[in-house]
């Protein structure tokens, strides 16, 4: 026994050394929920490109500064842009465009004007209706605003360039340049826009803290200088920071309450410190081993796995407390004897729980597999620590018998087994059935990612305000276009744009933004040039000039026989945002993003994407929702499978009837817990399903302990179960008070399930009824 304990010490020591070494090297905690997706599906290049696009979109930040005084608003905008720029935390800061930027935009397009047609013009020319383009030009020339002078008429006779420029689908419908600054006028207020890209990962706490500190201090300074100043912001980083802040606050509060509660509980019951640190030791060893093994096996740990894995490992407290409470009573015996007494019960508990956890491995999801490994390793390590170390570290003296506490702990048993309470029992079961039925009627399933996290209301209001003022479209969906080179990518986008335009007319989406809308492919420019030449210039130009009295013919000065490419868009251009749509352009091929907004029928967009080669529809929020749905379904199926797999072990020890009796409490808890949570308005989610995996294991533990309890030690067993339940509620049940919906759902389901598992546990123990 001592040798085994030493060997275990050696193993734990090595594991700790590995962990320290790995942490020293820097452990990468994966945070991307899509990393939990089935890795085999899709090619890695596509996933990389999608990740890149999603990250780039998440980095966008828009801030509006508004004041009744135009000068004050502009001062604030300039100061914010300056703070962004100087901080080094943002790039592509856009506030004041260079004074000649609009002229420069015209100059960029001008040499290529005979190959730049609006969609409408192209349709007219393709259908021999060039005369309507001529009529439009004449109406403009003769119109009251006198746009054209003779020089213009000779350079661009049919005014194609102005039409193309007005037709550009600029993304901020209500924003215009006012002396170089993007501005919106709304009532008395002048709003100016500052746009930027955050440097780094916006979901990294370090990046968030630095950026938000910089933003908040600049905003505070400005508000002090300009009393009426209004600031509205949009950006994933603002939401992520607020979410992290509230999560950290909540977690530390819950952790403190849970820690203090557990310590007080153990001190109150045992009036000794040793049980406390023995418990902590067992769980710490479990988490340590689980973490190291996961690092060794997977090279990293997903943060979701870590969170739930620690919870699942924490169940080891059940075995710990069974051993520790065995110290109660004058006949408790030596530590070795105590262990011998509880060993069958806790071994069965561990085996059933391990079956439950390892069943998660059956799902083809990397996340669930990692979770299964983490919790199985953790649980095993904790169990070995209880069995091998605790008797050696424990004190030999029995604990003072506390008759009051033991009697109280035994009350539940009395309730279930004593004839006097028969009516009460029937009443209680009827109540459970009724409440459960009522809860099931109200049970809903909700996997939508957007409902799993609470968005800060004030930030959401600001976002709506920015959208209203600027006409900026919302939505996280996009299409990824991959091709051999930029030209082919543009051609694919043009194919796509026709389909998207049709889909917009049927309401499948609200709008889109693509590079090809601003720079047509060379192929299209060539075709348009031919159309302009054949359908416009050749049939109509002479008559048109004669009619207007233009002498000397066309002067196509500065017409470039080459073609416009996206490379012509510079960083200071009003079209600089188009550059963000281009992810890659190199020997490995080109990747471009088509932004979508107001998507109402994702399936139609999937169909459109499937129809054009190299195009993929990406719906980050929808994908995570799909992952959660799939994980929830699998978790529920695996829950049933694991219960079935546990049965042979139980049947081997308890026989057919006994195993069914042992199954009853955990099964009742698992079935009723979601119904009770539903009464509290909690929808069933993946997080609830994981809580049920825990409830099943906890329920089996309690049931097995009760079944194994010799009549004389029954009260001690019940005390151990009761303490285990309270400790579980203190550590995880408190999560039910979280404001993060996912955590709230997890905690509430676990709270209900653990209490139910505890209440029903004595039903498993019929060995003692005769005594």
């Amino acid at each position: 026994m001592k040798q085994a304990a030493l060997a275990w010490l050696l193993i734990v020591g090595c594991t700790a050394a590995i962990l320290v070494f790995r942490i020293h090297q820097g452990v990468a905690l994966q945070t991307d929920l899509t990393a939990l997706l089935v890795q085999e599906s899709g090619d890695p290049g596509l996933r990389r490109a999608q990740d890149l696009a999603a990250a780039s979109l998440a980095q966008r930040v828009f801030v509006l500064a508004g004041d009744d005084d135009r000068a004050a608003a502009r001062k604030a905008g300039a100061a914010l842009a300056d703070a962004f720029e100087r901080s080094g935390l943002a790039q592509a800061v856009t506030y004041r465009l260079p004074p000649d930027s609009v002229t420069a935009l015209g100059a960029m397009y001008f040499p290529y004007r005979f190959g730049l047609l609006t969609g409408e013009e192209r349709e007219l020319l393709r259908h021999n209706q060039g005369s309507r383009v001529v009529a439009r030009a004449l109406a403009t020339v003769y119109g009251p605003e006198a746009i054209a002078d003779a020089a213009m008429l000779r350079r661009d006779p049919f005014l194609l360039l102005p039409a193309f420029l007005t037709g550009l689908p600029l993304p901020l419908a209500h924003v215009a340049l006012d002396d170089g600054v993007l501005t919106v006028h709304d009532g008395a207020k002048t709003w100016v826009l500052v746009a930027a890209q955050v440097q780094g990962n916006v979901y990294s706490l370090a990046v968030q803290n630095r950026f938000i500190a910089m933003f908040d201090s600049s905003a505070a300074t400005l508000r002090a200088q300009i009393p009426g100043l209004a600031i509205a912001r949009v950006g994933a980083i603002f939401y992520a920071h607020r979410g992290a802040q509230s999560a950290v606050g909540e977690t530390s509060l819950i952790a403190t309450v849970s820690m203090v509660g557990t310590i007080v509980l153990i001190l109150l019951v045992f009036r000794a410190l040793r049980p406390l640190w023995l418990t902590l030791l067992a769980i710490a060893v479990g988490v340590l081993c689980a973490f190291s093994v996961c690092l060794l096996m997977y090279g990293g740990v997903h943060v979701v796995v870590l969170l739930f894995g620690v919870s699942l490992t924490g169940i080891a407290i059940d075995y710990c407390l069974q051993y520790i409470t065995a110290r109660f009573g004058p006949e408790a015996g030596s530590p070795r004897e105590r262990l011998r007494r509880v060993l069958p019960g806790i071994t069965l508990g561990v085996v059933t729980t391990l079956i439950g956890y390892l069943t998660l491995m059956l799902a083809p999801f990397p996340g669930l597999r990692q979770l299964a490994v983490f919790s199985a390793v953790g649980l095993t390590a904790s169990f070995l620590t209880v069995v091998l170390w605790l008797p050696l570290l424990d004190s030999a003296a029995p604990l003072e018998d506390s008759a009051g506490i033991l009697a109280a702990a035994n009350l539940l048993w009395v309730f279930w087994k004593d004839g006097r309470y028969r009516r009460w029992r029937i009443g209680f079961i009827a109540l459970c059935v009724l409440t459960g039925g009522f809860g099931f009627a109200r049970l809903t399933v909700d996997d939508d990612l957007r409902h799993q996290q609470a968005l800060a209301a004030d930030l959401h209001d600001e976002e709506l305000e920015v959208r209203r003022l600027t006409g900026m479209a919302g939505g996280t969906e996009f299409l990824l276009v991959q091709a051999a080179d930029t030209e082919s990518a543009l051609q694919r986008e043009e194919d796509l744009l026709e389909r998207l335009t049709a889909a917009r007319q049927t309401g499948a989406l609200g709008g889109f933004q693509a590079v090809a809308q601003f720079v047509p492919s060379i192929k299209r420019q060539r075709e348009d040039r031919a159309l302009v030449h054949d359908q416009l210039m050749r049939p109509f130009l002479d008559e048109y000039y004669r009619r207007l009295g233009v002498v000397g013919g066309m002067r196509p000065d500065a017409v470039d026989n080459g073609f416009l490419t996206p490379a012509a868009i510079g960083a200071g251009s009003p079209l600089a945002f188009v550059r963000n749509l281009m992810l890659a352009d190199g020997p490995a091929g080109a990747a471009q993003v088509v932004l979508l907004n107001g998507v109402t029928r994702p399936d139609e967009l999937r169909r459109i994407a499937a129809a054009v080669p190299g195009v993929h529809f990406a719906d980050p929020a929808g994908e995570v929702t799909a992952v959660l749905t799939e994980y929830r379904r699998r978790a529920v199926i695996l829950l049933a499978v694991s219960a079935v797999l546990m049965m042979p072990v139980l049947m081997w020890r308890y026989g057919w009837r006994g195993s069914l009796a042992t199954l009853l409490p955990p099964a009742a808890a698992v079935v009723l817990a979601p119904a009770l949570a539903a009464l509290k308005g909690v929808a069933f989610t993946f997080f609830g399903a994981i809580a049920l995996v825990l409830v099943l294991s906890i329920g089996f533990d309690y049931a097995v302990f009760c079944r194994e309890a010799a009549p004389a030690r029954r009260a001690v067993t019940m005390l151990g179960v009761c303490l285990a339940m309270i400790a579980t509620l203190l550590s995880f049940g408190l999560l039910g008070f979280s404001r993060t919906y996912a955590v709230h759902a997890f905690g509430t389901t676990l709270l209900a399930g653990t209490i139910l598992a505890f209440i029903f546990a004595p039903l498993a123990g019929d060995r003692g009824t005769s005594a």
Partner: protein
Amino acid sequence: MRAALTLVCAAIVALASASHADVAAVWPSLAPGSTLYGRFTQEQYLKGLTAPLKTEGDFVVVPARGIIWRSAQPVRSVTVITAAGMRRIVDDNEVQRLASAKAPAFAHMYELLDRAIVGDWSALRQDFAVTCSGDRNAWRVILTPLDSASPLAARLTSVVLTGDGRIDTVDINRANGDSEHVAFLNQVVSSTPLAEPDAHLLNDKRE
């Protein structure tokens, strides 16, 4: 855009005028709620063209709502200017649209014009020097951009309006040497509601 600007200038000229002290005295303000109807002839003198471009048609001016400018000769087209922007319709097809949000300078000029129509010259005077001569029966108003370095001055040299009880002519002189002469005829002020087609044109709020 330049087009829009010029149009607004033309309209300003068409409706504004008067010298510092006298502009209020000679200016034929339009009462809010009334509508001005009339015909126009427009001649554009573009350097490099053999002959001026001549246009005829009719117009409707409704304070605080907008202007409808209908060309009948030599091409038929309708131009509608409101606070929301400018639209042009040829053969019942909308062929052009310029939203105010996208053309703040245009929107600004329309606002100046709309206020001048009802006799409020204060906004106009922020951008133009206004000189006025003559009396109510024969007056002449000259507008010149105040800031010679402004984008406005880069396009426009001066606007000259003449009139009696009404505005009779507007001459716009451009910085590039081109000029435009507009004459207004058969003007009628009415307080009856707009005819349905006109009201419909001015009501269109689409962007």
